[in-house]
């Protein structure tokens, strides 16, 4: 067992390689650049390839090309770059291209706060690219989770043939703490389902195997047509409304039907809690501290931590809402998830938000003061 003291961004790079990532294309942007820096040193050692592209549009395009050629691929960026990547996130959803996009969130909109923390891209991760679609987004709260969850991100991406967004923030990115590299036998690595039919029988979007069609690598002898246009099982464009409906429903269902396997949450002192905090990423750490302070004063506070941001943990939140008087949503934005949480809670209990978009982390006292302010504790 190897132990290291490293930053979240470095852990992402090492975790990605452990997951089998062999290709990285990116463009330097604060506060994500360390992911690129570390992976540019590490990939050549395993025969992988690092390319610095001319912008973020090109970065995700190259990642898509590499992934279709058979390599697990990723990029890393921050808000402004994430905005530029939206077009290709849509393409990767439509073309069912496995890939991982790390977004180290910083203050926005636009150039915003390059060196300060934010969780302001939560809704952009969900709906940034146009059209109906599902998305998987994962948020780590520690350096350890940067390592282990980036492996999960690759696994989900490979299994479901879909882009996965690794939605971290500047605090976790630059936080240095202990990382225990897990033993090999404790790591599960999933690889995409490859085609085993003869090339002449291959259909790139053949759904007879289930909702996730097997993938043939470019250049491996299979004829493969891929496009961002609506297509049928052959991959060729169609505007037939029945085929369009089939495709759009399948792209949705392959994620939604597996929602219980994808969605992960964590809890802290939630069993007997009367008030629950919902938080994710770095803010979940503040929430834990707030809970310990509140418990000292006899206030029964607990935490439901979202690990998977999308698909949303609506069932888990609904179950919890039955047992608490109030929910406090804490996030480094101006309450982006509030309506989503409220939709899950369905009026069972009150939902309050404590949010900041000033580049600073939500502190334990921000959370405790909010409880007083809304009169749920005195």
């Amino acid at each position, binding site marked *: 067992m190897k132990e290291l003291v490293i930053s979240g961004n470095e852990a992402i790079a090492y975790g990605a390689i452990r997951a089998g990532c062999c290709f990285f294309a990116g*463009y*330097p*942007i*604060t506060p994500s*650049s360390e992911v*690129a*820096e570390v992976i*540019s040193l590490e990939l*050549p050692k395993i025969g992988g390839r690092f390319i*610095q592209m*001319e*912008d973020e549009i090109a970065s995700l395009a190259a990642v898509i090309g590499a992934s279709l050629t058979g390599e697990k691929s990723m990029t890393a960026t921050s808000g*402004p770059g994430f905005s*530029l990547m939206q077009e290709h996130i849509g393409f990767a959803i439509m073309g069912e291209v496995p890939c991982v996009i790390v977004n180290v969130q910083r203050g926005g909109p*636009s*150039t915003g706060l390059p060196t300060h923390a934010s969780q302001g891209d939560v809704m952009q991760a969900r709906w940034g690219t146009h059209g109906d679609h599902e998305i998987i987004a994962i948020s780590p709260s520690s350096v350890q989770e940067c390592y282990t969850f980036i492996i999960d991100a690759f696994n989900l991406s490979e299994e479901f043939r879909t882009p996965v967004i690794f939605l971290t923030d500047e605090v976790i990115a630059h936080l240095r703490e202990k990382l225990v590299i897990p033993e090999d036998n404790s790591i599960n690595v999933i690889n995409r389902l490859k085609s085993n039919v003869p090339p002449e029988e291959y259909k790139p979007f053949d759904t007879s195997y289930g909702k996730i069609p097997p993938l043939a690598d470019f250049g491996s002898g299979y004829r493969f047509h891929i496009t961002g246009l609506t297509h049928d099982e052959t991959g060729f464009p169609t505007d037939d409304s029945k085929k369009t409906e089939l495709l759009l429903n399948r792209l949705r269902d392959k994620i939604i039907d597996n929602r219980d396997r994808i969605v992960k949450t964590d809890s802290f002192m939630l069993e007997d809690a009367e008030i629950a905090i919902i938080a994710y990423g770095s803010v979940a750490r503040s929430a834990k501290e707030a809970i310990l302070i509140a418990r000292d004063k006899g206030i029964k506070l607990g935490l439901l931590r979202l690990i998977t941001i999308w698909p949303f943990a609506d069932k888990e939140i609904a179950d919890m809402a039955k047992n608490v008087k109030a929910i406090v949503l804490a996030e480094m934005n101006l309450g982006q998830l509030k309506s989503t949480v409220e939709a899950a809670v369905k009026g069972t209990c009150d939902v309050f938000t404590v949010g900041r978009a000033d580049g600073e982390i939500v502190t334990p006292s921000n959370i405790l003061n909010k409880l007083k302010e809304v009169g749920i504790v005195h």
Partner: protein
Amino acid sequence: MASLKQLSAEKDLFASGHRACAGCAASIILRQVALVAGKNTVFVGATGCMEVVSTIFPYTSWKVPFLHNAFENSAATGSGIEATYRSLKKRGKITKKINVISFGGDGGTYDIGFQSLSGAMERRHDMLYLCYNNEAYMNTGIQRSSATPFGAHTTTSPAGTVIPGKQQFPKDLTEAIAAHDIPYVAQAAPHNWADFTKKVEKALTIEGPAFINILSPCPLGWVYPPHLSIKISKLAAETCFWPIYEVENGIHKINFKPKEKKPLLEWIKSQGRFRHLLSEKNKHIVEEAQKEVNRKWDRLLKMAEAKI
């Protein structure tokens, strides 16, 4: 053209007190451009060193309107400004000439902003695009760009046991923009202020798009003592690493021809980013780089001579 004495009497429109590194050539460049352009000017700056250092809250160096848009689109934003001024003029709402100057570093110009620059030049907006070329992404931590010279060390073209710095020759952006057949394209360097300010003046006087690519020595990224920026700029011209020339209506004209071309090794020796090239085993890289400088210089000489 204004003399140095005249220019020095003008009020600076790019004020001191900005946060550029000691010895930064780009801040000198912008100051000179602003002096020549005068107060009827709007500047559009791409994300980059000069945007960051000139506009730190609650201060600004700009005594003229300054618009910072995202990284890739200072030329496109300038296009909108210029087109609107033209429309306002047509409708008689304004009468005076307003200069539109979009600028970016080599990252915002050679790479991510290339598309918007090409579009603005092709649509023939009456504007100047200025690239302060410090040959890498200095603002985000010295990553290579397509302007980074062959053999230079950057954090993403690190010189070590595997590779001796950047493996590719830089993109010839000046010629690429000249291929847009716009009225005025020039290369300049900050040591030759008279040449540079004359070029800015010319660019702002002619009707239609103009592009100036100016070399901008960077003590931090190029690794040399800050007081040497101007000397290093001069060396770039004397070795013909960075030819000082212009392309006016398609005709190449060389503005500075060294009496005796200095060997490129002198340029290489002057900067830490090339330190690894001084070893015996990397001698061939220097030779290759010299060969490329010779090829490009000879080509330029021929074009100037043939008046093409």
